[in-house]
């Protein structure tokens, strides 16, 4: 049985009195790719900020590979790789310099860092471009560098917050394929926030969030059975309409 990489238990969070997340619970196991679907304002980014401890929560518990994010923060964060929705690369520095910075933050030696950077960049066919400034790369290539960076310290859990937004179809396809390959090869757990249903593979799991509540959670088959629909977009629509199945 696969280990649990991410466990979210009964998390509630509010901004200035307004409830953004209401008793949210779900889990992602190693070797699973879970898509977090929800309309704008559903609470996806808030949930990501709580998992990464950028925000603090008072109610509930989040664990990464068994480490409590609140109490064992550094151990939990060491197991986590993140690609944020906003670009987070330094535009004036080269690909290599950006990646070296990340390996330093994770305490990886220069020798090991060089090897891992080469491995990750080669996987994306980006190694030849390692000395180019980020500013010279297009959006798709920048995203590839960000994903490569998130994997440098060999995390068990990868969080992707809408990483393909604004990219052209070939770039999106390449990133989607690559991440699914990683899940299969490395036994990685992925939580992927997205609006784009065509990015989901049949083997993926779904976590559907609406107005701060989990509306459905589990395999595609389970969600389709619950909603008595035949396609994900129909299930999503049904669950995110007012008065939807709770």
């Amino acid at each position: 049985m696969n280990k649990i990489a991410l466990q979210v238990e009964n998390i509630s969070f509010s901004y200035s009195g307004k409830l953004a997340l209401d008793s949210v619970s779900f889990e992602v196991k190693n070797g699973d790719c879970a898509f977090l679907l929800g309309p704008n304002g559903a609470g996806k980014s808030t949930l990501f900020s709580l998992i990464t401890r950028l925000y603090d929560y008072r109610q509930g518990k989040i664990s990464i590979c068994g480490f409590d994010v609140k109490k064992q923060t550094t151990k939990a964060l060491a197991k986590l790789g993140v690609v944020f929705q906003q670009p987070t690369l330094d535009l004036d520095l080269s690909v290599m310099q950006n990646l070296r910075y990340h390996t330093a933050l994770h305490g990886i030696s220069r020798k090991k860092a060089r090897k891992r950077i080469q491995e990750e960049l080669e996987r994306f066919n980006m190694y030849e471009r390692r000395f180019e400034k980020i500013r010279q790369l297009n959006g798709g290539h920048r995203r590839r560098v960000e994903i490569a960076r998130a994997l440098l310290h060999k995390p068990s859990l990868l969080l992707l917050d809408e990483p393909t937004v604004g990219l052209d179809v070939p770039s999106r396809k390449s990133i989607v394929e690559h991440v699914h390959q990683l899940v299969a090869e490395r036994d990685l757990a992925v939580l992927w926030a997205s609006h784009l249903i065509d990015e989901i593979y049949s083997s993926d799991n779904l976590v559907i969030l609406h107005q701060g509540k989990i509306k459905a959670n589990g395999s595609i088959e389970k969600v389709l059975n619950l909603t008595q629909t035949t396609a994900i977009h129909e299930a999503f629509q049904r669950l995110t309409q007012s008065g939807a199945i709770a």
Partner: protein
Amino acid sequence: MKVVHYWRAMWGIIGRELLRYVKQRERFIAALVRPLVWLFVFAAGFRSALGIAIAPPYDTYILYEVYITPGLIGMIQLFNGMQSSLSMVYDREMGSMRILLVSPLPRWFLLMSKLLAGVAVSILQVAVFLGIAWFYDIRAPWQGYLWVIPALILSGLMLGALGLLLSSFIKQLENFAGVMNFVIFPMFFMSTALYPLWKLKESSELLYTLAKYNPFSQAVELIRFALYQQFNQEALIFTLVSFLIFISLAILGYNPSKGMMKRKGKM
């Protein structure tokens, strides 16, 4: 957590900041032009208007340019501290601050490393400034250039911590203009950077008191005395205590469960 991890991360943060600084040539030049204009234009103009009596650490009459030099070093560090905080607000808006904050190290350590990185940049700026001043015949005893290094580290830390504290309050980049008007200018003008305390006392008792207890004045005096191989205990204690207060509040400000981040739901 291994010590070597902390060590690598700290040098990674300092290295990145120095690299960014060197790559941004405009920033490098702007940081030098400001104090040099004050030195070559302002100080030259005021040389005849302001007579500086003999007062420690000087043991003879000095030119106004000599008096103003430690103040301009302080100015470099003050602007650099604020610039670092500006870059933190920018990093936060642009998202790159998140990469720092989600790395597996305690937040206080990450902020301290960021602060040290800013100090390293400011010392580089000061070294170039003192080099140019040396060619302009403003020279301290050579040992003074060594004495001043620890003073610059402490004053840089104190001013950087103030910047860090301000950055935890500022939500948006646009608000930074307010920092210029309400922090940098009052701190600089109400200090001993441009005129000695006794001169201020002659004109206003209130201004004298404000300047005396201004942490920036104390940092400038620490630098001034160190440059002439003298130790100013009062300035050292004052600067150190100010640093400890500012850094504690800044760490509190960046703590997700206690500080401003919680209040704002920001980051």
